[in-house]
């Protein structure tokens, strides 16, 4: 078999040597445009798991690579001129040049033909002259671009600018530096890779980059700028450049990774943001899986490539997902500059969800001790106390009220009310919940009118007898526990008149049992749902007054906290979303109009709800549908609500229409809570399947949420 490899990076060299090792009689050639010793870039980082696979694949190169590793265990974060350390991680670094030299030598030893300074401009010649063409020619792959209509690459450009530099300063930790300047924020990702040199990547936003004039700067000027900016860290050490330029990171994906006798490997097939340091690892793993596929399927190329692609693609995509989260963090890191150093660091370390409070405690108890002391103080500085409670048991302010801990217990959605009246069984469920000692008990949606119910079994607050029943309930809760109760006021809008949710959502009641529905526009929720009436001004006033009446009844009944529903496609949320609000009056169209009615309702309720009791909103942060309500719009609505006296926001996503499908899983709402809390600067309540104390501690300690919703189903 004749194999031609284009590109002598980690992917190409490693694939060539693994194949040659197994098939000594195959003819394998590598074409590399650079000279043998020259290479861009500085050092690369590996984690433990990759190493096991390298050992199995080729022991000889594995030993050489690991012999050349620099190993370290610390992450240093410089922020506000102050250092925060976290130990107990494992990183191994190696110079890219060294890594390539090892792989080149091993290739030669096995009999792979290496051609340097051999740039391939037209790969089509190899389609007939070689049996297999391995395209390992990096992110700008000529093979991929020649056959772009087959591979169908998608490239997403990052919003930040970065430059990949080196320094002769020897670092002893993975180092992040955040530096605010008159131009904006700059951040550094730096790590050691051999005994003498370290990688030093400088990154900033496009605006900051332009403002600092770096768009006009050449290589030497850029270098001088960075040298000057980080002179306090570098001391007498120099920053080094190697054809370095300010670029934007490209996240590359391809529809397919193979075509006829060609196959894409490494960066030619996929990239993942450098802040999770996995590109080389992924490239080498590709080579391993490809070589194994040859072993399995011999010269049946279709089978070999299918196997390679179907095994690798899901893994790589999972990595790309984590990388995008990390990249997004760095692109929005300005959002978190209000945090104190310890919290800022904890937030940074937990950014992609792969590390948590408990993981970090195992790695570095001292660091977690500092995190706890920072959570336990009012101002985020470190508490002086010897011992402090874990984050989830620390007090928090919700508007006018101080709460003893961060737990909100969600009550069962299965209320079984009749005409809005709470049944006995549910009252005892509430009392049981109160005895579990959460700070708050969260009611499922409570209808503000009979027509505002989702199902005939929804609780209500629209008649004097409702108030009396709530008053009795509140007395019972307060008499024996310190828990507070949130009444979550809602109008179901076009999601009304459905069956109780035992068998599913939005299954309409039989026609004779339905009541008329209201919505901003006459669009049924599902194809089977009845069509709602588009509300006229009078109906809008009536519904607003229903919210006001419910708030008054709740206040009279002694309810502690009130929350207004603007989520999940119920009435007020359906005004917010352009998918469901098609009005042409001043309540439809641009966001300013779409949020008008929900804000009017909020203001009217705020006016009657006692000032000394918290008032919040459940807000959809994203419809998660094309053309839907966006996170940016949610931030705008959040800011308006805050100005109007909203004390907290509970975040929600989806359900605006039946077609949404959030990526459900543990803590799936945390990014939305993080966004609202740190952009709007308002306390957030976050649910989204938080089943362990670790989830809650991680969210609270990182400043992603102030209160966390837990469910009795997970704590029976």
């Amino acid at each position: 078999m004749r194999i031609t490899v284009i590109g002598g990076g980690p992917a190409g060299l490693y694939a060539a040597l693994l194949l040659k090792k197994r098939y000594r009689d195959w003819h394998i050639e590598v074409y590399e445009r650079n000279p043998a010793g020259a290479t861009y870039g500085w050092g690369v980082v590996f984690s433990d798991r990759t190493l096991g696979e390298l050992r199995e694949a080729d022991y000889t190169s594995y030993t050489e690579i690991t012999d050349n590793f620099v190993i370290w265990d610390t992450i240093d974060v410089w922020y506000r001129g102050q250092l925060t350390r976290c130990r107990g991680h494992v990183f191994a670094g190696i110079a890219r040049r060294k890594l390539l030299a090892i792989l080149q030598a091993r290739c030669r030893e096995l009999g792979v033909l290496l051609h340097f300074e051999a740039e391939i401009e037209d790969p089509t010649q190899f389609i007939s002259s070689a049996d297999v063409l391995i395209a390992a020619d990096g992110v700008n792959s000529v093979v991929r671009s020649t056959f772009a209509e087959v591979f169908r690459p998608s490239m997403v450009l990052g919003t930040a600018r970065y430059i990949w530099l080196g320094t002769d300063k020897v670092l002893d930790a993975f180092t992040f530096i955040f530096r605010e300047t008159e131009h904006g924020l700059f951040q550094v990702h730096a790590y050691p890779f051999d005994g003498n040199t370290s990688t030093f990547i400088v990154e900033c936003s496009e605006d900051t980059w332009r403002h600092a004039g770096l768009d006009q700067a050449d290589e030497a000027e850029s270098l001088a700028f960075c040298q000057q900016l980080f002179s306090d860290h570098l001391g007498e050490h120099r920053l080094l450049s190697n054809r370095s330029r300010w670029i934007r990171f490209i996240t590359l994906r391809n529809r397919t990774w193979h075509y006829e006798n060609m196959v894409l490997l490494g960066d030619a097939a996929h990239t993942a943001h450098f802040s999770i340091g996995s590109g080389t690892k992924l490239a080498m793993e590709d080579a391993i899986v490809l070589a194994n596929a040859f072993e399995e399927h011999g010269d049946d190329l279709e089978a070999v490539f299918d196997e390679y692609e179907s095994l690798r693609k899901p893994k790589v995509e999972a990595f790309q997902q984590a990388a995008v989260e990390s990249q997004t963090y760095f692109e929005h890191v300005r959002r978190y500059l209000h945090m104190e150093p310890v919290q800022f660091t904890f937030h940074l370390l937990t950014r992609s969800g792969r590390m948590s409070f408990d993981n970090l405690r195992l790695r570095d108890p001292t660091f977690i001790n500092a995190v706890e002391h920072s959570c336990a103080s009012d101002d985020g500085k470190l508490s002086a106390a010897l011992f402090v409670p874990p984050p989830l048991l620390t007090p928090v302010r919700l508007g006018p009220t101080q709460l003893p801990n961060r737990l909100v217990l969600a009550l069962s959605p299965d209320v079984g009310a009749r005409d809005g009246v709470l049944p006995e069984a549910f009252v005892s469920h509430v009392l049981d919940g109160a005895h579990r000692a959460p700070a708050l008990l969260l009611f499922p949606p409570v209808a503000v009118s009979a027509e505002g119910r989702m199902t005939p079994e929804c609780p209500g607050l629209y008649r004097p007898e409702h108030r009396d029943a709530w008053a009795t309930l509140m007395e019972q809760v307060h008499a024996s526990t310190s828990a507070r109760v949130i009444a979550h006021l809602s109008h179901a809008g076009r999601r009304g008149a459905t069956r109780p949710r035992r068998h599913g959502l939005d299954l309409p009641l039989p026609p004779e049992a339905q009541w008329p529905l209201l919505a901003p526009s006459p669009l049924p929720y599902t194809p089977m749902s009845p069509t709602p009436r588009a509300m006229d001004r009078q109906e809008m006033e009536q519904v607003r007054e229903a919210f006001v009446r419910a708030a008054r009844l709740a206040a009279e009944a002694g309810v502690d906290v009130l929350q207004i529903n603007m989520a999940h496609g119920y009435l007020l949320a359906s005004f917010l979303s352009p998918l469901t609000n098609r009005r042409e009056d001043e309540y439809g169209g641009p966001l300013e109009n779409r949020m008008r009615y929900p804000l009017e309702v909020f203001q009217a309720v705020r006016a009657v709800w006692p000032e000394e009791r918290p008032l919040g909103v459940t807000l959809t942060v994203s419809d998660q549908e094309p053309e839907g309500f966006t996170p940016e719009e949610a931030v705008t609505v959040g800011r308006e609500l805050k100005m109007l006296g909203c004390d907290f926001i509970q975040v929600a996503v989806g359900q605006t229409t039946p077609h949404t499908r959030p990526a459900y899983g543990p803590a799936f709402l945390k990014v939305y809570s993080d966004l609202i809390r740190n952009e709007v600067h308002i306390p957030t309540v976050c649910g989204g399947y938080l089943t362990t104390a670790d989830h809650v501690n991680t969210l609270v300690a990182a400043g992603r949420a102030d209160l966390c919703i837990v469910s009795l189903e997970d704590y029976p």
Partner: protein
Amino acid sequence: MNVGIGLPNTKHDITGEIMVTWARKADEGPFTSLGVLDRMVYQSTEPLMTLAAVAGVTQRVRLAATIIAAPLRNTVLLAKQAATLDLLSGGRLVLGVALGARREDYEAVGAQYRGRARRFNEQLLTLRTFWEDHTAVGPRPVQSGGPPLLVGGMSDQTFARVARYADGYIHGGGPPRAFARAAQRARAAWEDAGRPGTPMLWGMAYFAFGKEAVEASRQYLLDYYAFTGPFARRIAEGLLTTPQAVRQFIRGYADAGCDELILFPGVSDPEQLDRLADILEG
């Protein structure tokens, strides 16, 4: 956790007699349900008809379609068949449904492959109406609201469907850790939808005991799952072949919150059922 057993309805050598023997034995044994698989272009028996046939020779076990590729079927007919089976079995049907991954199955029955996801949603939305609202299309199922409906699959949309339309989730197979992750996604979706309680969670796996049966089962799995490419091998490697493996697997699934685990045979010899029963009872 309950443990059910699969019928060998996708084995080439099946006869009416073998099927009835399996069903009778399962009904007498420690098993709580009988499962069947669905595949159009294959030498397999039709799942609902198979369950109907064994309904008559069993009294106790639940009859579980695990799963039916619903969009291959007409919705009204499916609703009627399910209601019929529920009625005739005295309320023992559990209906697992999914999209079905094989294009050739769609082509064979003349169903559109494109747009199948949306059609599946519409089916899920309507099935329940036939069972709950005594429409002109009967019969009335014995179980109130109709048979429990499980949805299978692995996409984000699957879990949204579980929460929106179904009573639970059915996993397609894999080690306990994979099941646990899928179960969490199902629970998260359920909680977010404001459904009361928790979703029913079902799992499945393959077993074979004895050298020849193990070899034959591996061949069968490689063939049956050939359409999944390299994953066929992984599925074949996951075959449970020893009492130890079966017990550990059951323990793993139970710990992950599985309600019912169905163990499918790799060969059709009813003696395999006896051996599994011995392990469960021993």
